[in-house]
């Protein structure tokens, strides 16, 4: 394999998009644009764009800091200032970033947000996170509560509640802060572009149903979801990105190529896995390598559904703009109840012909993690496929034990081999 990091043109395209967004964010004094900080799940980018505002996502900043090995010091800084070692490390990395000058990945200072748009979707911590940020920034905060779908369905009451909050609280706040009047036709246009990009994203994710998958739907998947989960859903850039990405994957299928890794094309597909839970960011490359070196391909993952579940049929709908935004938020992965999540995982294992389920349980994230051991048992019971459990963290390097993770993965791959030989013997 090559030693240099291999990047496809879609990756380079995305890198430029992200860099442009950070440049726009750190140039608000010159460009005069207002900034809304918000979260990935329940991200209302199409709406934010209607007010010419920029979208800043604290989780993404924490991920960037994690991948650049900067988050550890930021977390410890926040802990020194009284934040508990027990709570979410995204929050502490974000707070720590502020105390270190709030420097964006482009090396320039991030402006304070003009609006904290608290999309309280699928994660309790979000609510307190933005209270903590408001405590620091003192800027206006508007909250969008997205009810949890405890019974596994979206009720009319839930949808109506979200729509009402959008109409009566969120949109007026954005009009007031941006000085731009809300234009529903502009929102419809943005949503139309979202749906086009979503079609191609789903095509890309589903391409892993090919045996000899052309993609890795977890480690590669986090790149594929980048634009649509962040500041680009609803933009022409995102539509173009997903068209290019689809083209690349089509070519890979034609050439019977496996997923691309940082070291080139994966030569062999030995294991097909479904992964539940976010990745670790502080050791992302090392973590990924443990998989591709063993010929393990992730064919489906739930993390790639955290900012929107599109593969079950949902699309942003320009004909029902606000209702559609509400349904998007309500349907995000961690806003679904556990029986629903178990069903999704079971279906992924069947539909993608996976060898089993791997759970990467994240210390920081109770929204994902609480209940995962039971989910694992249920999925094993329903599919008869082996499951395994590893534990890491999002952006706290203290919780990534490479030897431990590698040991567990190796044992898991052996378990799959045993299961296969048992099946073929039978």
């Amino acid at each position: 394999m090559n030693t240099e990091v291999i990047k496809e043109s879609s990756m380079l395209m995305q890198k430029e998009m992200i860099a442009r967004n950070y440049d726009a964010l750190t140039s608000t004094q010159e460009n005069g644009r207002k900034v809304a900080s918000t979260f990935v799940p329940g991200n209302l980018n199409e709406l934010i764009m209607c007010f010419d505002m920029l979208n800043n996502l604290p989780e993404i900043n924490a991920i960037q800091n994690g991948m650049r090995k900067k988050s550890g010091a930021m977390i410890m800084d926040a802990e020194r200032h009284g934040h508990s070692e027990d709570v979410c490390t995204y929050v502490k990395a974000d707070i720590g970033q502020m105390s270190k000058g709030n420097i964006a990945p482009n090396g320039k200072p991030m402006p304070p947000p003009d609006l904290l748009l608290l999309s309280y979707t699928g994660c309790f911590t979000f609510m307190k996170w933005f209270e903590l940020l408001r405590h620091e920034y003192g800027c206006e905060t508007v909250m969008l509560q997205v009810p949890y779908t405890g019974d596994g369905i979206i009720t009319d009451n839930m949808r109506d509640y979200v729509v009402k909050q959008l109409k009566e609280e969120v949109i007026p706040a954005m009009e007031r802060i941006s000085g731009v009047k809300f234009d529903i036709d502009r929102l419809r246009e943005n949503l139309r572009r979202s749906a086009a990009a979503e079609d191609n994203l789903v095509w890309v994710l589903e391409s892993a149903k090919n045996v000899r998958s052309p993609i890795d739907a977890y480690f590669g998947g986090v790149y594929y979801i980048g634009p649509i989960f962040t500041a680009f859903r609803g933009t022409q850039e995102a539509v173009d990105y997903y068209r290019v990405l689809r083209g690349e994957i089509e070519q890979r299928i034609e050439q019977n190529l496996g997923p691309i890794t940082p070291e080139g094309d994966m030569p062999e597909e030995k294991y097909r896995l479904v992964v539940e839970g976010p990745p670790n960011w502080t050791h992302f490359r090392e973590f990924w390598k443990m998989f591709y070196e063993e010929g393990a391909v992730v064919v489906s993952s739930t993390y790639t559904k955290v900012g929107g579940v599109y593969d079950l049929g949902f699309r942003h709908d320009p004909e029902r703009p606000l209702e559609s935004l509400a349904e998007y938020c309500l349907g995000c992965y961690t806003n679904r109840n556990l029986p629903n999540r178990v069903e999704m995982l079971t279906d992924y294992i069947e539909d993608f012909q996976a060898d089993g389920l791997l759970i990467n349980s994240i210390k920081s994230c109770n929204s994902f993690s609480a209940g995962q051991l039971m989910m694992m048992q249920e999925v094993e019971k329903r599919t008869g496929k082996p499951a395994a459990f590893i534990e890491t963290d999002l952006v706290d390097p203290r919780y990534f034990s490479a030897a431990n993770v590698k040991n567990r993965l190796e044992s898991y791959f052996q378990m799959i081999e045993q299961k296969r030989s048992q099946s073929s013997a039978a």
Partner: protein
Amino acid sequence: MAIKDIIERCTELFDDLEFNAAKNWKAADPDRKVMAYMPVYVPEEIIHAAGMMPLGIVGGGDQMEVIHGDAYYQSYICRIPRSTIELGVTGKLDFIDGMLFPSICDVIRNLSGMWKMIHPDKFVSYFDVPQNFVDGIGGEYYVRELEHLRDGFAELTGKPISNDAINRSIAIYNERRRLVREIYEFRSETPWKAPASEVYLLMRAGLVIPVEEHIAMMKDYLAAANEEQRPLRDSCRVVINGSFCEQPPLNLIKTIEMSGCYIVDDDYLLGNRWLLEDLATDGNALQVLADAFLHHSADTAAKYCTRKEDVGQFLLQSVKQHKAEGVIFAAPSFCDPALLERPMLTDRMTEHDVPHISFKYAENSGQMQPIREQTGTFADTLKLWS
């Protein structure tokens, strides 16, 4: 009734992890049903109006060995869900007819789904509450959620639940609220007469017996405590914050007291005083419950605080009202709401020169000496230097 007898009865109820009081209540009539719920708040009035007994579940405490429950949770998740699972899988809750999981944090939220999978034949509901406190938005949503809950109970019991029935239950719960308030006020005024460990046991009993019985018990306690002669100690007055979900071991409360602190207010078992005022008993009952939730309910970390300047005001008000000399932030390990909010609350206390200390516990914490040293030092500091 003497205090000793009342507290003995409360202790029996506290120790009884078979929930015999609720079982016996149910066994007395084949039509009776028991609806369990977890912290912090559910509208018990609707359960009561459905002819069911609300049963508060706050985990298994320090007396229960958790064996199965640990297989369901990673080490970094608090203890209350694992001991609650233990209660469930060991059959101790087989007699209940349903369980409500209120919106408090992601762990309890996800537990609702686990419970659905473990008990597929039972009534299991995640009970969401509004974090938007505007009548026409969060209020409207909440009324419809309450209607949904009422209809679910009606389906379970096979009997419709009338507005009048809920109003009658509100009247009974108003009486309970008044008595709870009276006891808390009594303790605040004369803390040596109503030790926190006793008040805690008394409130804890209210989770597992019918409300009518609890009302009678609280009346007896107030009368008896008034008569009881107990020595006044030179303790300092503190407020406890952060203990609204997973409960501390009883020994921890006693330890704080023994170290020289009078607990004059707390957020233990907050559900029984969640609604701060008496509710009207002649209106649209669900609307009345919703109004009270939106505008006259306790504050805790599980709620969103709409305005920055209001963060910590409820606690600050408690400090002032109860003439507390300091605050003890005591939160369960891995409790997201309490631990995330804590830095904002400590800043607010510092801003108002309210001394405070912090520590964590678990419902099965066994080592009290470090806590005794910490709270004892805090008490000494308050006495000597404040």
